[in-house]
């Protein structure tokens, strides 16, 4: 499953992720990492069966862990044109049989590619 970590600026230089990998002996995949003036944000893929322990371990080391929604398509705004589909590198967005927009949240890597392309600005990333 996907979890998002947020660090304060002070903790950006600490090896939090590698500590948790070693401690939990977990295979953690870093999907996206970003450091800016307001701290660090990292999107991780963690094994489902170790997720609870891993999340606990991160929290213990002072990282904020966000689990759950990472992307949302705002229904009122979306006109279901499908332009976002062609821009998604991981096929998280797709057409259903009746040309409704389908979304597989678990696939999203928060690459942002679809955001500025949506003509009705109907796509929202959580924590933006």
């Amino acid at each position, binding site marked *: 499953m996907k979890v998002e970590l947020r660090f304060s600026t002070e903790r950006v230089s600490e090896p939090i992720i590698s500590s948790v990998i070693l401690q939990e002996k977990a295979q953690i995949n870093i999907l996206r990492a970003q450091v800016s003036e307001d701290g660090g944000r990292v999107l991780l893929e963690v094994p489902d069966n170790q997720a609870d322990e891993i999340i606990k371990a991160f929290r213990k080391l002072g990282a904020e862990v966000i689990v759950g929604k990472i992307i949302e398509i705002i229904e009122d705004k979306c006109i279901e044109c499908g332009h976002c589909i062609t821009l998604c590198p991981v096929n998280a967005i797709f057409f259903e049989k009746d*040309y409704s927009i389908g979304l597989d949240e678990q696939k999203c890597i928060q690459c942002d590619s679809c955001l500025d392309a949506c003509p*009705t600005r109907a796509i929202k990333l959580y924590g933006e």
Partner: protein
Amino acid sequence: MEYLRHKNINVRKIHNKLQQKRNLQLENIRTIEEINEKIRKGDVNVVTAEEMVELVREKGSTIAAKDVDVVTTGTFGAMCSSGAFLNFGHSDPPIKMENLTLNGVNTYHGNAAVDCYLGVTKMHPEKPFEYGGGHVLEDLVSGKEIELEAAGYGTDCYPRKYLKTIITLQDLNQAILCNPRNAYQRYATATNGRDEIIYTYMGKLLPNFGNATFSGSGSLSPLSKDPNYETIGIGTRIFLGGSIGYVIGEGTQHSPTNKFGTIMVKGDLGKMRPEFLKGAAFTRYGTSLYVGLGIPIPILNEGLAKKTGVSDEDLKTNVLDYGIARRDRPVLKETNYAELKSGKIVIDNKEVSVTPLSSIKKAREIAKILKEWIEKTQFFLTAPVDRLPVDTIVKPMKVVSRIPFVNEIMENVVTCNLNDNIDVLAKKIIDNNVNHIAVIDDNDKLLGIITSFDITKAIATGKKGLEEIMTRNVITVYPEESVDICATKLEKYNISALPVVDRSNKLKGIITSEKISSLLGRIGLR
């Protein structure tokens, strides 16, 4: 001779038979009055254009023509040529509005004192590419409050010079959606052959044919179902923005001879619904409005049954390279709406993801709603009071001074091979009085570029091999691109020259910033 004569007779016979069949197809089997009578009685048979395609495929056009009275169509796409005439009534003391904004968006007010036209592509100056005229129209239709700010120069009859107020759609005397060009019969498919992302009115196009977009609803598209405009004409009653509208003439750039017909439409904004009028923002291009539009086509004869039964496979369109910013963009291939709706097309031996920019789901919904309106006696058909032109073409703009293109101004480029040594290059630079040397392979393909600064640096740091000093990711231009593109690229990448290559990366010449400057200087002096 005998054989030929015999053959001629046969050909004539076949021709006559075809002609007879054609005449039969054009022979009217019902009138619009008869259809309206059926609507009134509640026994009209209406199908959507998609249903008609199936019916004609299964039972043939003769039976379909007998069974079906009306075929409904629909489309929901960004239609930049849209806007509304608004009349606000007079304030006391009255004002002749000279500068008028609605939610900060400028309107055109070159008509009477309190009239304006709000165009959907006009952007809010502080929220460019995010909020514009289309959004104001959507907000109006949604019943939201709109801030109106107006200034005038003051006249004897209209003394007021400034006014700020809040209005809603209800407060206006008239709010008439009036779109000079809507419902393109078909549209091109856009992709991008450049090596960088481009943002266009066809959306965000990824580099190297990374994706593609198309517009139009194919077999649901109104004008492609009546391609000779036999029933769609001036006065045709239509579905517009969730309410009733009318065709008021041919649209601007109406080009029936190559099946790019368009219509001009109007409707009462006050009765429209926000689901069918949506403000749109295209990053780095501008704002627009998605317009829902549907037209009922009366099946007056078998010919119309056949035409409304045309399938997505039969509706062809071209894939264009929007990476080349010219009036006539290069055609990469022909495709059809069935292929486009499948989500994948092949360009350059590569499978490319393609989706519409318009909404197929909404187009379907519109055709369905229109069908229901007719079935429920809420919508009657009209006969056009005049036909749309069928023989016009779109002319390009007459331009008296022209901008040169790369192939007209490019210069010869000094080249070298990867195994040349630096001394040879230094000599080439001095002998030819140039600053750039292109590194090419045996087939003239561009490998990299070396500047006189690179040579100086190589000498200073003791580097010898060209591989170590050349720039590999060279920004290039194509011969058919315009000088504007060169100027933009030189500035954007902060470079001093652009090698010119063809599609296979073969070196053709070079454009330097000196050349561009001297050219612009000359144009400026004129």
